[in-house]
């Protein structure tokens, strides 16, 4: 039995990610159980952990701290494969510019920045914010989660803030929107994605399948 805990701290819709994991699980030979929960014991008992997040970072961080999810995530990243998605990825960093500046968990070294209201592409055309839709991810480091995912595949993004880090060896994927930004990060048994694999059709499901099979080593 492969037990996946999706951490529920009351922010947004976890139905999609749970359904996508169940779908991927059905296509694998092994039994997969997906639990959406904030129960520390259940999460401690899981083989793998998903750390999702949507909405504003201030509200996410407030709920994370109120429900002691910071400790739950800290325990998880010390012991098992963790996939952080969207604001979940952002919450792992040091700080975010959103909501006038919010201190985040600081489990990964980097900052969360705003795209800006005057973002333009290389032809000088205005780029809208949020960055919403399907954009390409260039794989900068080989990783087990990229298995069978063609380089420069398009994933579904929806966000106005992005991760910036000096730790280039953590960056496994970049996407261009005005400038290059960090689409995915990896640090030991953590993989973090700015896009939504659960909404990215075939390539997203492939990445989730890889996560279900990943032992947390590179």
């Amino acid at each position, binding site marked *: 039995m492969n037990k996946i805990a999706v951490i529920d701290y009351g922010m947004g*819709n976890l139905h*999609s990610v749970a359904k996508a994991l169940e779908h991927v699980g059905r296509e694998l030979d092994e039994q997969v159980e997906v639990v959406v929960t904030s129960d520390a014991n259940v999460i401690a008992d899981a083989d793998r952990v998903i750390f999702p997040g949507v909405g504003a970072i201030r509200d996410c961080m407030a709920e994370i701290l109120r429900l002691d999810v910071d400790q739950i995530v800290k325990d998880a990243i010390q012991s098992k494969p963790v996939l952080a998605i969207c604001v979940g990825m952002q919450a792992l960093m040091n700080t975010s510019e959103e909501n006038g500046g919010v201190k985040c968990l600081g489990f990964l070294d980097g900052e969360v920045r705003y795209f800006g209201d005057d973002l333009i592409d290389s032809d000088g055309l205005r780029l809208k914010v949020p960055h919403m839709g399907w954009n390409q991810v260039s794989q900068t480091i080989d990783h087990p989660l990229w298995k069978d995912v063609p380089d420069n595949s398009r994933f579904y993004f929806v966000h106005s803030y992005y991760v910036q880090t000096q730790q280039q060896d953590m960056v496994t994927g970049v996407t261009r929107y005005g400038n290059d930004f960090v689409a995915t990060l990896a640090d030991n048994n953590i993989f973090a994605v700015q896009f939504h694999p659960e909404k990215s059709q075939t390539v997203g499901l492939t990445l989730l399948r890889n996560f279900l099979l990943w032992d947390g080593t590179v």
Partner: protein
Amino acid sequence: MALAKRIIPCLDCDNGRVVKGVKFLDIRDAGDPVEVSKRYCDAGADEITFLDITASHEGRETTVHTVEAIASQVFIPLTVGGGIRTLEDIRTMLNAGADKVGINTAAVVNPEFVREAAERFGSQCIVVAVDAKRVSIDGEPPKWEIFTHGGRKSTGIDAIAWVKRMVSFGAGEILLTSMDRDGTKSGFDLELNREVSRAVQVPLIASGGVGNLQHLVDGVLEGEADAVLAASIFHFQEYSIQEAKQYMADKGIEVRL
């Protein structure tokens, strides 16, 4: 390498069936929404929009089950609109598996609802649907007003001012339907789309009037839309999603192939 323009098939659903009428008349059955959604997803649709036109309470229950069924099998973004009036309605649809909800009449009745919804659920899932109708006559500077109740009820509100207000209240995306063009197959109101797209920072979905693939191209290149929505040209197999994407790509538009 750039963000792709999106193609979004729209499923107008009544009591659990996909229907499509021309100007809300002559409703034709176009199949089971779950099967239709899967077919579009497999064909490369970038998102699915599900518009509930069911009036009855029992029908609403059917809609929730349909959304659940679609969301369990389709792994691209799903927007649900039609009859979204309360925060509870939004919660119900998100719990059923919708990623975004479309708010139309309820925003006009109570604009603060959009603000509350965006604060509660995040702007990323709040799409404000705007039905606009041209009210200027030829030769005058163009002017559009928003209408409710399927385009039957005038509100006197200027469309451009309205979308700006909705975005300032937290709308994460605008779904703009030209009531003059909807169901006519004569193409988007490009001037309307361009004005709206330039007025706001959030993505714009153009809707209303698509009759051929060039209309989709025009919506992006001239209407400056970030996404194009169409219903009948896909439902009745006049064109496939693949054909539409290939056609757009051939015209130099970045799409997900």
